[in-house]
């Protein structure tokens, strides 16, 4: 090894040691754990009760189903909303642009516990502002947190509120990288603004939108705080239990570390597979 390389590695050593101890080792160790029966103090090799159980466990199927529902409904809605928001924020007619950009980005900055508490209050059956507003419109009160479908809707609304602005800012950066002269040429050729959006803006934004989708997919696969805090640990019943929550319950409620490790690896594998599909769908085509 060349002296310069050695010196570089010497400087990197402290970081690499931390990386080894707190990243590589836990990742490798939890892979090993995922093959052990960890139900009592003497852990034994028995992948049937971890990987085998995944295949037949209705609670895992329920958590996977819930996560996929959120993924399929929430991510497209949020990305579409973010694209519209970004386009509006990019408009030259907009006054106080900085303020609006900050306002839409702000939800990400708010602490999870604080925003969850506010959402719980807003969607409270008897006293929440949402049901009060519905009452004004003569819509009967919805038991948001005790009906399975309504609780799922609350989770989707909350996650969308929190992350739409964040994605809009990323898409905005993409919008600003589209050269102005493309639009000028199109305008000279008499192409309407709407057609410009669909035939110039969206195709040129594709790499950025794919990036947003991939980030959101990974985020949804790990979704934990909202169902933990807003719907009170995945309630009602296990109607909003996500994979992240299920993993937590197995690891830190039932102390079943082996099964929890198998779940963790499954979540990671699913996130990779779904992201690869997205990248493939969003690839540059000839």
């Amino acid at each position, binding site marked *: 090894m060349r002296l310069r390389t050695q010196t570089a590695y010497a400087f990197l050593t402290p970081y690499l040691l931390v990386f080894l101890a707190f990243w590589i080792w836990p990742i490798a160790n939890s892979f090993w754990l995922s093959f052990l029966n960890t139900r009592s*103090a003497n852990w034994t090799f028995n992948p049937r009760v971890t990987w085998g159980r995944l295949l037949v466990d209705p609670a895992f199927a329920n958590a996977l189903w819930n996560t996929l529902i959120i993924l399929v409904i929430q991510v497209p809605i949020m990305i579409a909303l973010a694209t519209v928001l970004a386009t509006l924020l990019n408009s030259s007619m907009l006054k106080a642009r900085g303020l609006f950009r900050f306002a839409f980005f702000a939800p990400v900055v708010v602490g999870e516990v604080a925003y969850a508490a506010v959402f719980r209050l807003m969607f409270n059956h008897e006293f929440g502002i949402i049901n009060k507003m519905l009452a004004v419109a003569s819509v009967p009160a919805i038991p948001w947190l005790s009906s399975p479908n309504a609780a799922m809707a609350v989770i989707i609304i909350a996650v969308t509120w929190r992350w739409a602005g964040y994605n809009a800012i990323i898409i905005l950066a993409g919008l600003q990288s589209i050269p102005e002269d493309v639009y000028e040429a199109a305008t000279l050729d008499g192409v309407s603004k709407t057609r410009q959006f669909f035939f110039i803006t969206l195709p040129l934004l594709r790499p950025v939108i794919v990036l947003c989708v991939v980030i959101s997919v990974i985020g949804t696969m790990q979704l934990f705080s909202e169902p933990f805090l807003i719907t009170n640990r995945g309630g009602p019943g296990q109607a909003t239990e996500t994979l992240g929550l299920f993993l937590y319950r197995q690891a830190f409620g039932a102390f079943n570390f082996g099964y929890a490790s198998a779940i963790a690896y499954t979540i990671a594998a699913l996130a990779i597979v779904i992201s690869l599909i997205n990248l493939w769908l969003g690839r540059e085509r000839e």
Partner: protein
Amino acid sequence: MRNILTCAAFALALGSGPAFAQSGEITIWSWNVAASSLKATVAGFNKQFPDVKVTVEDLGNQQTFDKTLAGCAAGGAGLPDILSIENHESEIFWSQFPDCFVDLKTLGYTDEIAAKFPDFKRTELEVGGKAYAMPWDSGPVAMFYRRDFYEKAGVDPATIKSWDDFIAAGKKVMEANPGVTMTQADMNGDTEFFRMIANEQGCGYYSKDAQAITVNQPGCVTALEKVKALKDAGQLIPGTWDEKIQANTAGTVATQMYGGWYEGTIRSTSPDLAGKWGVYLMPSASADGPRAANLGGSSLAITSASQHKEAAWAYLNYTLGTNDGQVTMLKEFGLVPSLLTALDDPYVSQEQPFWGGQKVWVDILSTLPKVVPSRGTPFFSDADEIMVAVQLKYLNGGYPDAKSALDDAASQIASATSLPIAE
């Protein structure tokens, strides 16, 4: 007293403490009212052991559980001397971290002392010949009811002996008091009613030896049927812990079924309703069936990491093992003693002004010796999570009957725990 002090001084001079003269500092982790009640016993304890400084840290229930898990996983690092552990989830600690806790028998927890507690409190704490913790409070189930609502409907609670009687009474109460529901349960996130009635009927998730799943046995089937009967009669509506308190204070509920510790909750959250509440025993499946069950209750354990195990034991023995300690906690914070001799304490037989002069503790505590043990086992949370979902599906008509719902629950629990289903 002077003798003890002299001995203590003598022992300090020698630099080592014999069993009767402890010194040092001990720390306890606990939560909410339970932590407050432990603090309340320190003064009495210090009269006997002036050289032991007791610090109670109120971490909250979930934090205590999580930090105990982390501390035990780290080989005892950072743990206090004494830990509060809820009975139903205690065995998960003994089975996963047996070396994290001291066998109390080695510190002086004799069979004679242990025999002062009812069997249902000891069943989870003494596993494999070791005593991991000492029983603290318990939750003998009672019906807390609004006297004025029942009176208006002409219902005498003494006549409510079976769940059928309860439903018939509920019909009258709800007719006479518009806007009032007979009772509430957290059917969306808990199995409290099912567990209480099942325990009363002698059934639980697991067998007493923790080797088999018993959730589909007849007692549990009856329990689940009763929950559905209550709900279908429109007398049982969903309510979380907070929503129940809101309903209590708003006067929209006539009855709450809970462990005896709910006495303190009603008394402190609805002070304006003094004299309007009363207590009666839980109904049974039949008019002459058993009427005792338990919900909740905790224990105290000493950690292997403790530097002052003898002092910690002295505190346990005073606070949990004497009427003095247990009745202090009952008086101050409504913590129900599991020490059987506390039943004979004069305070227990007093009329309680908040409860309209009823001797509620005589009524509630008299059921203690009759409670059938229902063991949590290391797999409690597996079974309970499954049961929450199965119960909700059954209540919404997702199964043809209670037996098939519980057969499904049993097979799910079997796949989660690898335990066999009892014949």
